[in-house]
């Protein structure tokens, strides 16, 4: 036997690959093979589709946002409603698919990491549905920030393991989940929630999330007779973004826009803007754009949103940005908060703080596009999980003054 190089396998241009301890390589090869077989098996596809329909509630609607459209004075705004998927975010699309894949592979238990808790809840949900034990690693700081989701995971029967190392956020939870996986790789499947990590994860997660964009294609044809002129999504690790954008990569007339966490501002070093300010590096098993210092030490990211304070990003998004196919912008914590209230009050939808970043750049994009154009905003998740964080800051006087 000789060992093939992965110069092309699992690569998106220079990004991607499989940078993990040798202990995990055979498991990743097994996963790659099992996934290829599952993908080629119509029965597996049918099973996933059926669970998504009967349990998750797909398809999710494409809702016209009449009052935002009027207020922004530009393109017609449409909301892809992943907040209406069971568990309240797009994350469930991937966990259903991966847990079914794990069952097919004969795995006995599931581990996962989570930042905001949405992926943890989605994994715990899929595990409860199919009767698999589930362990979720979560940064201790996020355990505090996302108490509601911690309770939900525990109620669903999952074990939540707070990680006290490093920045105590998603990055450290992912390190700990990988370390655990190294010790238990024979009978355990690691459900990664972002389109990140070692090959084949970025491909698997993207494929399971691409249902979002595929539905947008069909729905936009039915609702306004053509493809949207632009699609905008928030980017942490990037699973909702690659999911809604991927089916449109070949449609050059569709502008693809990602919005990263600007945190306290791009000049403060307290942000999560790895596509905007990151440099090439290896984090959590793949080569991508990462926030790091000149010595290759990974920097701590910051965002008001626990789902966006990750110093890396999925390799395919890095490739799309590097090649110019995708535009990247940022929104600060304050802009996201402002957008949260704006969307809540004008559309009757409490968006997740992650999603609020996409909304924060929506107005300018709608105006850039102009009237007669169609803008889709991926409403990746609902904000119920964030109300404690947001309420703790108090409703700004400017907002209460306008509306009360």
């Amino acid at each position, binding site marked *: 036997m000789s060992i093939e190089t992965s110069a092309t396998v699992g690569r998106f241009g220079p990004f991607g690959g499989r940078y993990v301890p*040798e202990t995990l*390589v055979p498991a990743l090869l097994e996963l790659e093979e099992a996934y290829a077989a599952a993908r080629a098996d119509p029965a597996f596809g049918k099973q996933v589709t059926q669970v998504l329909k009967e349990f998750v509630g797909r398809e999710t609607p494409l809702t016209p946002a009449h009052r935002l459209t009027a207020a922004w004075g530009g393109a017609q705004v449409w909301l892809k409603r992943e907040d209406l998927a069971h568990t309240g975010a797009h994350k469930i699309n991937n966990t259903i698919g991966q847990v079914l894949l794990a069952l097919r592979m004969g795995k006995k238990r599931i581990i996962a990491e989570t930042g905001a808790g949405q992926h943890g809840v989605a994994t715990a949900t899929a595990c409860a549905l199919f009767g698999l034990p589930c362990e979720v690693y979560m940064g201790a700081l996020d355990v505090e920030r996302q108490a509601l989701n911690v309770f939900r995971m525990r109620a669903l029967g999952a074990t939540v393991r707070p990680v006290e190392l490093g920045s105590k956020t998603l990055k450290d939870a992912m*390190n700990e989940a990988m370390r655990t996986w*190294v010790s238990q790789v024979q009978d355990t499947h690691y459900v990664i929630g972002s389109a990140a990590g070692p090959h084949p994860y970025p491909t698997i997660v993207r494929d399971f999330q691409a249902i979002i964009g595929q539905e947008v294609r069909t729905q936009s044809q039915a609702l306004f007779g053509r493809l949207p002129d632009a699609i905008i999504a928030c980017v942490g690790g990037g699973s909702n973004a690659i999911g809604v954008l991927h089916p449109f990569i070949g449609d050059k007339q569709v502008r693809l826009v990602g919005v990263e966490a600007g945190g306290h501002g791009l000049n403060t070093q307290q942000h999560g803007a790895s596509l905007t300010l990151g440099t*090439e590096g290896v984090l959590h098993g793949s080569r991508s754009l990462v926030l790091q210092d000149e*010595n290759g*030490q*990974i920097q701590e990211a910051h965002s008001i949103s626990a789902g966006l304070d990750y110093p890396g990003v999925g390799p395919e998004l890095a490739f799309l940005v590097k090649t110019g196919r995708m535009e990247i912008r940022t929104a600060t914590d304050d802009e996201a908060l402002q957008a949260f209230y704006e969307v809540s009050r004008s559309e009757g939808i409490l968006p997740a703080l992650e999603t609020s970043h996409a909304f924060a750049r929506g107005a300018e994009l709608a105006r850039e596009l102009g009237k007669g154009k169609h803008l889709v905003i991926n409403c990746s998740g609902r904000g119920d999980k964030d109300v404690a964080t947001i309420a703790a800051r108090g409703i700004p006087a400017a907002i209460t003054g306008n509306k009360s």
Partner: protein
Amino acid sequence: MSGEIAAAFAKAKARGEGALVAYAMAGDPDLPRSVDVFAAMVEGGADILEIGVAFSDPIADGPVIQEASERALKAGASLKRVLNEVVPEVRKRCPETPLVVMTYINVVMALGEEKYAKLAREKGISGTILPDLPPEESVGIRAAFDAVGLDLIPLCAPTTPPARAEAIARDARGFVYCVSVAGVTGMRAELPVDLSSRLELVKRASPVPITAGFGISTAEQARAIGAHADGVVVGSALVRAAHADGPAAARQLCAEIKRGLKR
């Protein structure tokens, strides 16, 4: 090939001993005092020194080495500073001992793979271990290392299937680092029962010496492994000893493990 590593194994063998590859974290507790730890380990009988360079996200390491990384980063350790400030001092005090760097690929990439290879060789480094760089990803970097005679030391895991283990061994530089347990670095009370047969398989295929590491902390474990491998790697146990009781404790533990390696 550097040649120094092979010579160190041969010397130990000629004395009727298995080789001890001893790991410590450069910069723990600070840069100068980590030099004392390395020197003490050689006094205790270490045949090869493994110089840990801290990384912020060490996914192959258990808690003992993770915490050492955090201390080293706080003390200002970086690959450049380790090569410029720690390695020359260690060289001075242990001129006969081959030095091997262990760090993560991102740390080397940040400096530049070719630049690192050249600088490391200039400073007297014989080999490098990158635990998150499996063979599939290592072709380019190995060519850069080969060009200057720096050995890229491969790892073999308990989960590695036999044919793959043989392929890794056949192509190895320096020595083969057989990971004894499926897991991260750290001490273990017991080692897997099938370890000896895995070591024999790798040994048959490998043109270079083979070692086992991860989980080894006692003379008894060293003796058991020494029957099937050319040496052992000890890391977490030494890091813990040095952190708790200073260089002398690391020296003593090295001497104890060396006793286990006598044939």
